[in-house]
């Protein structure tokens, strides 16, 4: 197993490195045998009798994790902020949708959503295309310089994005003239080493004899990738998409710097602006901020819940086996 990878995960939105966002784990240096899928099922079944203490612990933890979100929602509906203990329960006298209508009047939510969608979609597209290519090459092809490519992926993860921010900004905006374009937003995020790790890991689990046979039959590498390898790793693609999604969707600093034109700003940027500038003049600033937070959080959370089956340990897990 190896170490350097990685991606810090937090701060999806601030400035971190381009291409972060998705975070996964590591990867192993040595080929990992394909994990028998059956193992997991059986272990759960056998150990379920141990579940009571765990259940209590988990319930407690879930409360700690979910409560702020519940409180965020309640707070976003309050006419005036109520920070007492009673305020944590909805009271009909103190409920309003005004905070939401305030937001909707100040920013074009739909346009923000569309822009976020284009930005995120573009990042996912590049990530998947580049990731599949290099992931396959690293896993199933032998070529000179492979070790360097791999080492590069590891180093990439350690650099704070702030260090690159200004040079990158000058390059994208001044040298390439990509200010106020979707491409300018997307480019620094178009490579995502995390996705590469995921793909590489999946491809490595496929038996290499499969590919050798295809090569002997005279199939081109591109055709092998497209017709044999990719269909076998569909779950990896879904995982990579979900992991990649988090980054650009929540990213704030970079699109904020690159887009001066409100017409193409993603939702996270317009909401952050709303929070920092306009909320203070709203009748209930905290309510307005929390309402903004709910609007920003809802699509990511909904998508995640919808696809949560794909986002499970075994998918990502394949990359952490040491």
């Amino acid at each position: 197993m190896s170490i350097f990878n990685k991606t810090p995960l937090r701060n999806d939105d601030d400035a971190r490195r381009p291409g972060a966002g998705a975070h996964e784990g590591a990867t192993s240096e040595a080929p990992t045998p394909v994990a028998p899928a059956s193992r997991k099922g059986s272990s759960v079944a056998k150990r379920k009798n141990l579940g009571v203490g765990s259940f209590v612990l988990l319930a407690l933890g879930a409360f700690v994790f979910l409560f702020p979100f519940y409180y965020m929602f309640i707070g976003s509906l309050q006419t005036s902020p109520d920070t007492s203990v009673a305020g944590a329960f909805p009271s009909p006298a103190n409920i309003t949708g005004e905070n939401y209508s305030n937001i909707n009047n100040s920013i074009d939510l739909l346009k923000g959503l569309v822009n976020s969608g284009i930005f995120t979609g573009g990042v996912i597209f590049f990530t998947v295309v580049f990731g599949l290519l290099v992931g396959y090459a690293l896993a199933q092809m032998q070529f000179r310089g492979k070790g360097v490519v791999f080492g590069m992926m590891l180093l990439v993860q350690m650099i704070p994005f702030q260090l690159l921010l200004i040079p990158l900004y000058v390059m994208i905006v001044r040298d390439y003239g990509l200010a106020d374009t979707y491409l300018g937003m997307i480019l620094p995020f178009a490579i995502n080493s995390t996705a590469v790790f995921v793909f590489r890991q999946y491809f490595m689990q496929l038996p290499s004899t499969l590919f050798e046979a295809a090569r002997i039959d005279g199939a081109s590498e591109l055709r092998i990738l497209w017709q044999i390898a990719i269909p076998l790793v569909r779950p990896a693609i879904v995982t990579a998409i979900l992991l990649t999604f988090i980054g650009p969707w929540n990213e704030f600093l970079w699109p904020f710097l690159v887009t001066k034109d409100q017409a193409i700003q993603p939702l996270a940027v317009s909401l952050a602006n709303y929070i920092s500038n306009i909320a203070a003049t709203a009748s209930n600033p905290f309510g307005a901020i929390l309402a903004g937070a709910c609007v920003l959080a809802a699509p990511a959370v909904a998508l995640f819940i919808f696809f949560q089956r794909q986002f499970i340990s075994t998918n990502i897990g394949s990359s952490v086996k040491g």
Partner: protein
Amino acid sequence: MSLRSAGGPATGDTAGRTVDQRQAPRKRKNFLGRQPLGLLFSAPYVIFVLAVLAYPLGYAVYISFHQFFFTAPGVQVDRPFVGLDNYISVLSDPEVQRSFANIGVFLIINVPLTVGLSLVLANALNRVTRLKTFFRVSYYVPYVTASVAVVGVWLFLFQQDGLVNSILGPLAPNPSWLTNSWLAMPTVALYVTWKQLGFFILLYLAALQNIPDELYESASVDGGNKWVQFWNITVPGVRSASVLVTLLATITGANLFTEPYLLTGGGGPDGASTSPVFLMYQKGILQGNPDVAAALGVVLVIGVLLIALIQKRLVGGKED
């Protein structure tokens, strides 16, 4: 995996790639490996890394050794080489020293907490059968949500007359959490732990799948209780994941920015929660001294690299 032929220096990669594109089909195939096309497949990624990361990184290193400020296009200014001046002014700045100390505090709280909690919760999640999906989702939700969004509710919860203090009543700290020099950084560390834990649980859950059930079975035959099993089987079983989690948490801590920026209003109170990256932003972008900021960034990267190497040597070395 590394079947690459012995000793190719780093530059072999770039050189190899150009060669590949021109004359790959001919004799040099062996020199380039059995599937030289792999270079072509890697090329988009590598070119992107060079353009989007290596070049700006190199530029940042260049900046850190010169007297540098950003100018409008076409403006000619002197950018004399100043040697280590920027590094000296960074390392002798008490604010910078403070920020590194803050990160130390952060790591001391955040890393053990993250490793411990995520392992215990992942272990529990692995065993529980009812409501498994619900629990899993609840732990991941903070992780998938933008910091900009959740910071708002933390401010609301932890402010002077916020819910946390109302519940604590007379036990509430004074000054309150985020304005208390002693509590600001721990509160930030707590926040980050909460925000990230879902991802680390995910990593541990994956690692737990790899512990063969036979180990637990034989342990229960030998009469070990759950606690003993946990210590003797689970903890060593996920060791490689623990190394990874430790490293990731460390890198996360070193890159702390959003929290001091939004949660404690610019590293307050009185610098008690500044971080190196926040100072980079303050010095480089706000105050127009990118040379000093770049030097700080280089120091930070080197520091992280060193810690990572040490951690790997200490914890991760004896595997397999």
